[in-house]
């Protein structure tokens, strides 16, 4: 397996991480960042250290993990459905999470019961419940036709979206909060969110990292994949579960961030080829880098305020992708 794509991607990721730590409403010079990490802390850098360790580092970690989840599961969804338009929200994760989140915002739980986890937990449960329902509806006997999955997902998304919009209109007080969540962005600080989603991401992305070979086989259609020895129902179920788990965890704290899951795999495919054994890990790294850079932009553009990162990914993601597409020489990259 060629090393160079991974080398380049890791370098970009590292730079994104450094930027994410250094940049914000308070710009921390790189020299100070270095001093904090190497343990030299004269008083002058103590303020920087506080910002970095309690705010920037956990936020960087959360954004990195979220981006990785979206990029990795985006690649998996595109492979599973053999469809260049597929993204992690295809079978309803986004609409389920949105409905869960808005429901939680409308019902005023006693703080002691859920605390700060009310919205993320409801979003997570909503996402997984939707996938389960869509999967069950799409199943015919022992097979799960991909077309059925997509159709059931679309139907469910419309339904959930309608209910969500209704709830949002009913509660004028929470409207702004709901919209902000739905547009995507990290609102909670500290290591809590990172540690909460880490196990789900570890499991979900762990499975996806090993799914490259199966995804390659699936590109030739169900018949050929089976004739070559793949158990497609079992594989499809496992991969759907893993990708949905990772996505649900990602959106639970960060809201619905679009474009990363759709565009990053395509960019990686254009640059490094369609072999999913490489594409999934590269999309993971690329997704992390892309979201980190978007988050940095979200923090600087209207500083000291913050834009929802979902707006940044769409605003900058679309032109960037079009630029990459124009520069790509090979026609059949899919």
């Amino acid at each position, binding site marked *: 397996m060629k090393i160079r794509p991974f080398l380049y991607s890791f370098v970009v990721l590292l730079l994104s991480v450094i930027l994410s730590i250094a940049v914000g409403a308070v710009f921390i010079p790189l020299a100070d960042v270095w001093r904090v990490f190497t343990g030299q802390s004269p008083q002058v850098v103590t303020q920087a250290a506080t910002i970095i360790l309690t705010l920037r580092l956990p936020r960087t970690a959360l954004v990195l993990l979220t981006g990785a989840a979206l990029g990795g599961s985006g690649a998996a969804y595109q492979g599973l459905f*053999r469809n260049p338009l597929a993204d992690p929200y295809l079978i309803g994760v986004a609409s389920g999470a949105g409905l869960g989140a808005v429901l939680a915002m409308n019902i005023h739980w006693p703080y002691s019961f859920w605390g700060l986890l009310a919205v993320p937990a409801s979003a997570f449960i909503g996402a997984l419940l939707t996938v389960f329902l869509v999967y069950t509806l799409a199943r015919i006997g022992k097979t799960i036709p991909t077309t059925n999955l997509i159709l059931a997902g679309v139907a469910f998304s419309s339904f959930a979206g309608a209910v969500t919009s209704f709830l949002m209109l009913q509660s004028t007080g929470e409207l702004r909060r709901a919209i902000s969540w739905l547009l995507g962005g990290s609102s909670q600080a500290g290591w809590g969110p990172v540690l909460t989603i880490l196990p789900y991401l570890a499991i979900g992305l762990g499975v996806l990292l090993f799914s490259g070979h*199966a995804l390659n086989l699936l*590109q030739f259609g169900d018949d050929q994949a089976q*004739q*070559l020895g793949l158990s497609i129902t079992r594989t499809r179920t496992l991969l759907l579960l893993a990708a949905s788990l990772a996505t649900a965890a990602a959106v639970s704290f960060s809201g619905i961030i679009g474009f990363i899951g759709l565009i990053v795999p395509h960019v990686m495919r254009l640059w490094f080829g*369609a072999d999913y*054994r490489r594409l999934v890990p590269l999309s993971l790294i690329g997704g992390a880098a892309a979201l980190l850079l978007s988050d940095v932009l979200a923090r600087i553009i209207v500083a000291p305020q913050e834009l929802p990162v979902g707006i940044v990914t769409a605003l900058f993601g679309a032109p960037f992708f079009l630029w990459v597409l124009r520069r790509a020489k*090979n026609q059949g990259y*899919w």
Partner: protein
Amino acid sequence: MFKIESLSVSYGTRKVLQSITLEVEAGEVLALIGPNGAGKSTLIRAASGVIPVHAGSVVVDNEDLLTLPAMRRARFLAVVPQAVLMPPAFTVWETVLLGRTPYLNFLGHVSSRDEEIAHQALQKVDAFDLAERRVGELSGGEQQRVLLARALAQSTPILLLDEPTVHLDLQHQVALMEIVRSLARSDNLAVLIALHDLNLAARYADRVALLVNGEIKAVGTPRQVLTPEIISTAYHLPVRVIPHPFADVPLVLPDG
């Protein structure tokens, strides 16, 4: 050698294949012919375990392949489908290597032995110089040869081909059939090939089986099956059968 025994397939209540029994010897090419909709593709799909069967078995060495998990079955039986809708971005080499799947771990890690076998498979179909090309850039004939190479890389004693010549130019049809027949002999493969062209079947098959409306109507040598009576009835078209001008096989021509 393998034996398809009493294989029956239904789509809902409609009986598509009725108790099909066919035997193919190692080193032999058996051509499956019949009008469209007779069930040729269905038979190949059912025998390779892709669609559920109502009854019947596919027996090799006293084992029913249909009861085996997909991975084990893929070590006995390889299928060459028609070259339609192939993912264009994969290279020929990547595609042929996928044929080694039944012998790889779940990561798809390829050993040098696997690469050697894929290498040989490409050479057998005379496509080795295409190795680094993307599948999307190839002609139909080249794509079909790549699929044949992939099936050969699977190293199975049985080869099923589903109308591989349908979209090919004449020279590619002949080239493919030549390769298939010589491989059957040299590698001792039991080959079942569905063909729509009766004269290709006459020239390249050792035996022919006629499938009409889900039933086997005739099995035998080309001379035995390709008779005016049998073919006219099956295809609802009067035909004449004459001796081929320079090959020792029958030649089927539409009459009138």
